[in-house]
């Protein structure tokens, strides 16, 4: 949770490094870092290199002996595959909508919780809980007791026989994901609200600022780093959403709720097409890296503007 601490320039490091320049540069100080670094490199980078390698091969596990190099053919196939493009659009829609909605809901709930009232800690406990239950359990729960057209609670509340999962599959999946992630957003925002300096807030009210004005000019800028952190972490996890789709809709009906993780899974474990699914994986990595680099640059800029460390 320390995004903010990355020194934006040479300046903020001062006191700490100067006390230790004696040993600077020696390999001994790198030693504590090495095990973690080597472990992460081995476990995360080697599989990606292999994915890259497989992506240039035609290799289907159900056709033994079919394995051979095909150059960029898999990539050409990926970009002419309408299902892939549909899954890409679904992934973008799902990620953007879920992050935004859960962030706004989380912010709203955090504001409600940032007051003293009877049963506050109990209410907070309630609100945190959807983040603590298994996403797999949450997905099955929504599929059955919420969305079921005959016995589901939505049927009872709205009095309609709509089969939510086949009528609005993507929206239904997104509802479950938003429900799951709102508590996390709320926790981070709440942490931000509670770290506000009380004096500044009091000064604002002495100066005659109304609630909205105080929120807009003081609280929101203070919260910005928390909101950015929440957005980034939320996006990382939601982009990879698999549980809800696998358990609620299986990507369907048709491919209406297929996102990239689910589609790659299908190509790999149901189609046994190693080459194709590897190429898709590589494309997803490239897209994610472009978006992430862009987002990270924005964040670093925002942090260095508001003073970086503390």
């Amino acid at each position: 949770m320390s995004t903010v601490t990355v020194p934006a320039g040479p300046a903020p490091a001062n006191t700490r490094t100067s006390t230790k320049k004696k040993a600077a540069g020696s390999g001994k100080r790198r030693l504590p870092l090495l095990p973690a670094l080597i472990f992460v490199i081995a476990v995360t980078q080697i599989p990606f290199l292999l994915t890259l390698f497989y992506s240039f091969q035609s290799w289907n596990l159900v056709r033994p002996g079919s394995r051979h190099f095909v150059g960029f053919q898999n990539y050409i196939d990926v970009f002419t595959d309408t299902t892939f493009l549909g899954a890409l659009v679904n992934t973008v829609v799902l990620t953007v909508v879920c992050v935004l909605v859960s962030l706004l809901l989380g912010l709203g709930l955090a504001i409600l919780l940032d007051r003293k009232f009877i049963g506050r800690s109990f209410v907070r406990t309630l609100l945190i809980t959807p983040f603590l239950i298994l996403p797999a359990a949450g997905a099955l729960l929504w599929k059955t007791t919420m969305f079921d057209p005959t016995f589901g609670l939505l049927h009872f509340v709205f009095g309609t026989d709509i089969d939510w999962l086949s009528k609005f599959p993507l929206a239904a999946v997104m509802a479950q994901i938003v429900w799951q992630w709102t508590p996390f957003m709320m926790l981070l925002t709440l942490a931000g609200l509670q770290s506000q300096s009380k004096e500044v807030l009091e000064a604002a009210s002495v100066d005659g600022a109304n609630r909205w004005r105080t929120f807009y000019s003081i609280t929101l800028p203070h919260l910005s780093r928390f909101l950015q952190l929440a957005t980034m972490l939320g996006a990382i996890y939601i982009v990879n959403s698999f549980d809800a789709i696998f358990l609620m809709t299986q990507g369907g009906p048709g491919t209406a709720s297929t996102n990239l993780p689910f589609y790659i899974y299908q190509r790999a474990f149901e189609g046994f097409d190693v080459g194709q699914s590897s190429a898709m994986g590589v494309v997803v990595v490239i897209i994610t890296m472009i978006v992430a680099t862009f987002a990270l640059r924005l964040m670093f800029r925002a942090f260095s503007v508001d003073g970086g460390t503390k």
Partner: protein
Amino acid sequence: MTVVTWIIAILFVFPLLWMILTAFKQESDAYTDPPKLFFKPTFDQIAGVLKGDFLPYLGNSAFVTIVSTLLVLLLGIPAAYALSLAPVKGTRNALSFFLSTKMLPIVAAIIPLYIISQNTDLLDTVWALIILYTAMNLPLAIWMMRSFFMEVPGEMIEAARIDGANLPTLLRKIIMPVVAPGVAATALICVIFSWTEFFYAVNLTAARAGTVPVFLVGFITSEGLYWAQLSAAALLASLPVMIVGWFAQNHLVRGLSMGAVK
């Protein structure tokens, strides 16, 4: 406002409350139109799940979660120390690298991971999951813990050094007391993410090493769900993390706030 907050909170967790209610119903009470709020509670479903093959899955989940969280701390604490209190050249690069591994979608690595685990006989063993969960949580844990290590006053470390304290003493006497709450919050996040992880577990384990989320998948394969039993299983599967989370929530909020501000 208080009443509004209460109502919103109860509406928000209603699906969960409903799951808990359903877990204590007979199957016949679970499917009714309109839904039944009052019924004769029973422990049949809970007992049924516990009597089935749920416990081995629970054991796998517990083992994988505990061992991988310990490994994260074992590898992460020294790394966080190196990146905060004794920064080395390229600290920022190392941090960016750790974060960037979180940006890589896990689906893109699943095929090689499957093939590697098959060739090393790790497929459907808890060890494959332990290795992957450690790698999955380590980057975030290092980022979190580093921010807590930054809280340790440099003067205190310097003073202790001058008094002749070596690294182990320094860690135990000066650093650990300051960072302990942060380390606990980090461990809690690792526990939550490991316990709830689904994608690796579904693809790399089966009958032998399946974790609790994999157990739940069994419910969709059979046509016609048993809602009451499913609710009981979902409740039991989530309960350990729910309880830990409830008790440690102050830790969590404080951990997140300290981490983000520092």
